């Protein structure tokens, strides 16, 4: 499947922008995970409807 019209190599500014964007995501994820540890918040069934079928 070749549906890509823009396949030219990146210019230096584009390459830099991509690198900064990737670094931003990595930093936010790393910082966020350090600050807020994920809690195991499995939804407890507050309204589980027993149905006989």
């Amino acid at each position, binding site marked *: *499947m*070749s*549906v*890509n*019209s*823009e*396949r030219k*190599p*990146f210019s230096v500014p*584009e*390459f830099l*922008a*991509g690198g900064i*964007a*990737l670094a*931003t*995501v*990595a930093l*936010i*994820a790393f*910082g*966020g*995970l350090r*600050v*807020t540890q*994920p*809690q*195991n*918040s*499995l*939804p*407890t*069934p*507050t*309204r*589980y*409807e*027993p*149905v006989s*079928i």
Partner: protein
Amino acid sequence: MKPVLFAGCLIVSLPLTSTTATAHVKWFVNCNVSDDPLPVQAMFTATFLLFFTLFLILLYLGCTAERTVLGASISQLLDRYAAPLHRRSDDLLRSAAAVSFALLWADGGLIVTPELKASSVWLSAIQLLIPMYMFGRATLPAAGAGIIVLYGYGVATYGLFHMLDYPVFIGLGVFFALSVSQNTKLLAFRFDFLRWTVACTLLWPSIEKFVYPGWVAPIAITHPELTLGFDVTTVVTAAGVVEFGLSFALFWTPLVRRFAALALMALLTAATFEFGKVDGIGHLMIIAVLMVVFAHPGGTHDRCHPVFAPLASGIALAAVIFLYTGGHALYYGSKSASVAPLVSGAALLTLILLCVPGRAQSLLRIAVMGGLSQWRVSGNERRDGPYVSSASAWASSSDVAPRRWRQSASAESAGLAQRLASPRNIRPQHHEREFGA
């Protein structure tokens, strides 16, 4: 005549009832995933067997029709009219992802789907960055990484078993990450990978209709008009078979998967009218991927004998049921109880990959050969002729392998053929047919 009429009515009407199922159950009903699933023997009721047999017959007929002149004409017609959409597949996925993640950011309390609740500033920041990164090609890998981070947070919060409902987000992450590649094979592969993950996303929850019929039943009861007068048990079973069948068809040959994608789009869109914005927003990304699958012309190379279709789908159903129950036991029950179903499921999946010729088989073979070569490098000095030949055959014939692999593999094959005394030690170098999945 009467049985034929009855079967015809069933085929037409039962898919309509599966609107009940295509509304993702966990978004509307509190489902306790740690509940024990139904035992396997309880799933195989007469109703289930009837519907599944109907599905197998339809799948076989569909695959047979694809190989006829009529099938070829329909394919050409679809190619012509879907070409504008096909050319803009990248744009469609980027815009759908941008809208989808912007809506998640606007909600502020979700990770990637309506039932995955979490509220953090950093999650919102990533959800906001993803749509922004969709504008430029250079930032697409960052958007892909963001999607995978959100999925990973979902795994950390809700557990891997729960998140197995949504492998499409892994597919999207990989798709956008590979979008900047210059390699045409990789660019083509990302579409296949995305299709496989969306098929798994729909296929895995379809098993819930068989092992947890009580989850869907409240929806069928509160929306009686969707049952078309059938009883709830029949509707839930039919919904499971339709959902499984259409999801499985997404793995199959071009025309079959295009019609499956079309049917799934229709069902998911119809479910939105009944279940509202939550369902529509939650399924937005899946519908966009299905549009891309529908627009993709496939190729003449990935055809497979029709008899493989019902055979593989029957084995796949058993395999997924085993993997689901085994995974559930591993996650919520005893590890010892999970071994047998997990091994059975894995064995059945391997059997499908071994039996059905094509790209999936090639990938399995290269994985096995990769393991064997590592073992050989780490101490075994004797080169095993047939295995080397087989790996080379994959690399030289597969359209997944990069060109330089194919060149070196061809050279290796030529050298090996000279060294080997007996011709029966050499495996065939080409697959006769190539399977699309």
